[in-house]
């Protein structure tokens, strides 16, 4: 997991988000979490927990305020993962 690439994170997120939001449509990097997926706070927190456990990182609250798309979230995770190594 230490060698994880940004693309892998994005791909994984797209998969998990499709599962979490029980959506029938495909999730892309540019998918908007709010308007397209209507992710609610409970689902979001579940997802954050999965991300944290999977990548062994801690996602600070203040960083989510700049996240709108799947890509934004993937970039954030990658950044945190890099700085925690």
């Amino acid at each position, binding site marked *: 997991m230490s060698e994880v690439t940004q693309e892998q994170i994005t791909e994984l997120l797209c998969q998990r988000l499709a599962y979490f939001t029980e959506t029938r449509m495909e999730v892309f990097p540019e998918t908007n979490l*709010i308007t397209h997926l209507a992710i609610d706070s409970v689902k979001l927190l579940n997802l954050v927990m999965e991300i944290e456990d999977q990548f062994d990182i801690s996602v600070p609250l203040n960083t989510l305020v700049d996240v709108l798309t799947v890509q934004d979230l993937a970039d954030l995770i990658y950044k945190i993962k890099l700085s925690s190594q």
Partner: protein
Amino acid sequence: MSSTIAKLGIPPVQKNDSQSLRIGIAPTPTHNLLAQRRANFTTLVESLEYAAQGETGYNFYDSRGNLKSVLPYRVLCTNSKIIAKRLSGLGLARNSRVALIADTTPAFIELFFACRFAGLIPFAMPVPVNLGSRAIYVQQLRGMLESSRANVAVASLDFIEFLNEAVNGLVNNELKWSGTPEQLDLLPEADVALLPNTPDETAYLQFTSGSTRLPRGVVITEKALMANLQGIVCNGLDVRFGDRCASWLPFYHDMGLVGLVLAPLAAQLSVDYLATRDFAVRPLQWLKLISRNRCTIAFSQPFGLKLCTLRARESDLVDLDLSSWRAAGVGAEMIRLDTLKSFAAKFSAAGFDERAFLPCYGLAESTLAVSFPDIGLGARSLRVDAKTLIEKKIAVRVQADGRKYNEFVNCGRPLPGHEVRVVDEADHEVPHMTVGSILVRGESVMSGYFNNADETARAIRLDGWLDTGDIGFLFEGDLYITGRRTDVIIVNGRNIRAQDVEELAEQQPEVRAREASAFGVSNEDGSTSVVLVVECRLASAVDRQSLINRLQQMVYMAFGVSCLVELVPPHTLPRTSSGKLSRFAARQGFLQRANLEQPVATTYTAG
């Protein structure tokens, strides 16, 4: 930890806790050598000076349950006096306001008390929680800084960027200093004697909602605060030797601050804190803290209990022992019996005793608590006939089986020194069992909204009665809440003012003033959804969809909830004779168009 060890009275031991072993810190003890005084103090700092003579205090845990930092009352007292002298060097007038972004840290509590020692008025500002919410969050901070006319603002390193952005855009900037706690530590200590506080001075301001433009700061005096703390400690919780608290409630929330920071201090109890964010991601950590440290008092909104029930797996229950938990306070939003029952069903296997449930009623405008039932009885409820309730506004107990009923939770009796009254639309007191607006009068009621005479006059009558905005009835002296008036929507424990949602909509170029109406509707599972109905002149489907997307995104960013947007032709929304939109009627119209039936419990409205 097995319950046998706990019963032998051995103080909490940190288990699996490599970090705290490494730094060599231990949580403050449950048992204090100092004789317990149950909140019989005249000011907040007086209660801190007393608690500082003992060994108890506040403990902060990280998301994995490791002890991160410890703040004994003794250290808090010393540190906050030093910070008070640094603040005094800024040359502020007594009773100047100090804005604090309140994450769950020792620094926030130290600053809060430093303000009181220095004769300044602190108030807590929220931390940002929603996806993509930067712009709206900064706007919220700005609103609070202006409404409070703050002279000092402090934010930790994590949030200082937001604070700076807010400060830079202030129209009426009265700030003399802003920065981080670390920067504050670089200021010199002024050579001044800290003057004692008096009961009539303002202790703090409490902002009640994340309003975007016009936030209101509730003014609470030392006298009101101490009266409420005494009510909570002596009457609500019947605090005793051996009590210990655990909390994940945010420090910027009245239940978090007054209930689980100030009340424990006033009774010299130790508290174990989990940051709200960490609870939200891993709710079981809260229960693990209670279990491990043998906590006896912990409060939550119903939503927090629901999160625990949802997220706990059978395997989680094995290591939990919740038998020490004697006061499971529930408040801050409508309490549904189902939520409590599911929680008890899930966690009774872990030793949770449902008699610990303590459903209570209160609001920031009355400091925190208004009413408590007797402790140790659990949640009691009343089944009333659904038809009579909606048609006659009268609660009639269901006698026969087969009748449709609504079940309401008993929120107990008013604290000593407080009265509760239920009135009709003409402001006349109604008989018991009749539903109406709930008014409160007593020592804990706020002085008003800061610097806002109009809103104050709307909330407090000349004879001192506070209009709570809640709807309910009295039965045998006990208070039952049946709903809120339509101006507040409660989703997942968050209070959302309908007006705030409408204002957001009106900021869009396509939406004119008074052409948007927001309200809540109940879903089948008992949860609430926000609905926004907007009158719209756009013809193109693309433009319409773009507006809907934008509105959903704005509402989400501001309030963290999904929202159903309905565009309707102009003149669809019902208006009152004075031209004001009627949310109640707008909601009725929406339900008709959507062909939805609503349970009466959450939708009962008056006025």
